[in-house]
């Protein structure tokens, strides 16, 4: 993940102080808000204050998640944080939720949601566990990794937030052939895409007539989904908290 590379700069550090919450907020804004949202209600990372946590609810669980990251997921390890920074962050998170804040509950029926998933061709682009396509993001852990509101938006308005690693690119080569895919890599001279057919396509930029970045998501917007279907689908996605992507790869290898 390219995002995590940006964390190499020195991180926030403060002296011991009682006003840990303010310092925690500052550290959160600079280092976490990009994924977890300004108020930790989630975004490209999960809701940390009013939804069930998957890696433990105690102060030391939280600190462990932060300091060591969550291997195999986009949650980076903030190994440079000292005890005081971790204290401040946890104080800040607690100040938002309070120990007994209500956890979001979902009205939909997860079992029915699974059918919605199957009927709407989601598996044609997504993967859960070992089945489905690798064209779009792996959804095996999507319930642990995103807040429900973000998932709702992802389905109804997928173009609202597209992470750079899922940016769509369309190229037309010198012979006029057009290819669209998810950008796997781009550099000064070359471009590699993953096509809908789940194949790699490699291009030398010299051989391209045009190269354009898609503003729209490569996922169709499911605006017409019946409200009940959408609720059920969300309930289903929220249950998905399976092994991280790399665990799945291991399973495949041991099967051979």
């Amino acid at each position, binding site marked *: 993940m390219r*995002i995590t590379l*940006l*964390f190499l*700069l*020195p*991180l*926030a*550090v*403060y*002296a011991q*102080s009682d006003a840990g919450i303010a*310092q925690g907020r*500052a*550290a959160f*804004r*600079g*280092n976490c*808000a*990009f*994924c977890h949202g300004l108020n930790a209600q989630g975004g490209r990372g999960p809701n940390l204050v009013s939804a069930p946590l998957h890696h433990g609810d105690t102060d030391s669980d939280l600190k462990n998640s932060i300091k060591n990251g969550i291997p195999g997921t986009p949650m980076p390890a903030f190994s440079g944080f*000292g005890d005081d920074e971790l204290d401040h962050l946890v104080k800040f998170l607690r100040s938002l939720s309070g120990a007994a804040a209500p956890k979001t509950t979902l009205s939909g029926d997860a079992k029915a949601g699974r059918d919605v998933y199957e009927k709407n061709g989601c598996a044609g682009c997504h993967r859960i566990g070992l089945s489905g396509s690798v064209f779009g993001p792996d959804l095996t852990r999507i319930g642990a990794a995103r807040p429900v509101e973000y998932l709702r938006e992802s389905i109804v308005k997928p173009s609202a937030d597209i*992470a*750079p690693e899922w940016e769509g690119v369309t190229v037309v080569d010198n012979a006029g052939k057009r290819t669209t895919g998810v950008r796997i890599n*781009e*550099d*000064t*001279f070359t471009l590699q895409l993953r096509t809908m057919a789940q194949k790699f396509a490699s291009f030398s930029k010299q051989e391209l007539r045009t190269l354009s970045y898609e503003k729209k998501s490569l996922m169709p917007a499911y605006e017409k989904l019946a409200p009940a279907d959408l609720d059920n689908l969300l309930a289903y996605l929220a249950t998905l908290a399976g092994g991280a992507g790399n665990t799945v790869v291991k399973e495949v290898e041991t099967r051979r």
Partner: protein
Amino acid sequence: MKRAALTLLCLAAASAQVPYERIVNAAREPQNWLTYWGDYSAIRHRTLDQINTSNIRDMRLEWVFQTGQTGAFETVPLVVDGVMYLTAPEGYAFAVDARGGRQLWSYKYPIPAGEKLCCGTINRGLAILGDRLYQVTPNAHLIALDSRTGALIWDSEIAPSSQYYGGTLAPLAVKDKIVVGVAGGEWGIRGLIDAFDAATGKRAWRFWAIPGPGEPGHETWSGDSWKNGGAPTWMTGTYDPDLNLIYWGVGNPGPDLSGDVRKGDNLYSCSLVALDADTGKLKWHFQFTPHDTHDWDANETPMLLNLKWKGRDRKVVAQANRNGFFYLLDRTNGEFLMAKAFARQSWAAGFDEKGRPKPLPNIEPTEQGVRLCPGVAGAANWMAPSYNPATGWFYFPVREQCDVYYAEPPVFVLGKPYWGSTGRAVSDEKEWGLLKALDPVTGETKWDFRYFRAPWGGTMSTSGGLIFSGDEDGYFMAFDARTGKNLWKMSTGMAIKTAPITYMVAGRQYVTMPSGGVLLTFALPERTEPEAKKPAKLADQAPPRKPSSRRIE
């Protein structure tokens, strides 16, 4: 034959290998690379043209030297009469045969266990003077090594690493002294430039980059802020032997992004200082970014050029500054001649006649964050520029990247970064890079070559009409100096973090680029050599020769 060669070698060994005079005239021996910059002026241009615009397409990998070290490989090797000297992270120095990459010796500085290091163990290279090499260590020592064996001769502390002083730069050898600066600007150090006696390792002079009580400039720091004000000096300076002045860039003030605790201009942070080489006394200074709050160090290369400027021959110093402006100063007295933006910038409305910027409103970092260009890493940085006398242009890598700047009231604690910010928020905002050719007289762009990412690789120019550089995707590339056309490239597999060099041994030109943990050396295929153009039949009849026997001839 063999005996004659041996006698010659003995004779050569009797006199010191690289006396000061050789360094002064380094440009006259383009086959060697005698200083970090190649010479004292830092133009990084070599009058070698065996590899040129018409045959560069045939250039290929000749040998690889594996350092076994990972981490950013920022060294610039020296080449002296067929021997290459380089450093690698973790305190390593190596001597290798510049023709074939065979190791001649290796040295590892024993970084004391548990030593506090502000800045990791990256290193940018060596200085040579006489028969000795000089190396700065991660814990801010200067050491002297025997260039023939790699044996340690002396070890002097520059400044205490217990106060988080560090060392990353290549030293500068001037006359009988070795001049060095320090890293650690984010850790509340007080910057300095030191000169050591090359023979004994004793300190000859010190220049404090933050003036102490009673010294001029001290009043530009409120309260006690000068004590931990940063102003590091982490890049090698340049030297004008005629004026006997050393030009050295000074880094940003600390805490980096929170200026309230250090009201004032904060001299000599973000400045270029001109020091008397014998005494270290300040001759003049020019501050690019007074009271900086965006981490815009002025450690970028101070390149020395002689130009016709507004009809007059001027001795100038040119710098593409981290703040996004290209500057020309008169290097005899520091007079401001010109500043011209070379990248997107959203902080300065212009300059007064003395070169002081007129800041735009709302550029100070805040708790909510302020988006500004250039970003914290700057539009330029320590990556070397170069100058080609044939085109008269200045070639350098540009970082087109903006940032959101956050501020937080800082508290100084020894051993913690004194940053004054929550760190840099990630964003999806696209960055890109440019290799730019610029007319230093007008500041106008002559051509740009666009990189996908903002680069950390420096440039080199040759009389073959070529500009060499590397990008963040790991491409090592050669360009036509006039048109900017990419003529050659190779994917090295690791982001390039330093500048290439070129040299010549036994009539063959080589180009070296460090990348990842390896040193890659390129040359034209041997068959294009005049020597190989002997009648083909003769060569066919000759018995098969071992490669080694050919070398002795």
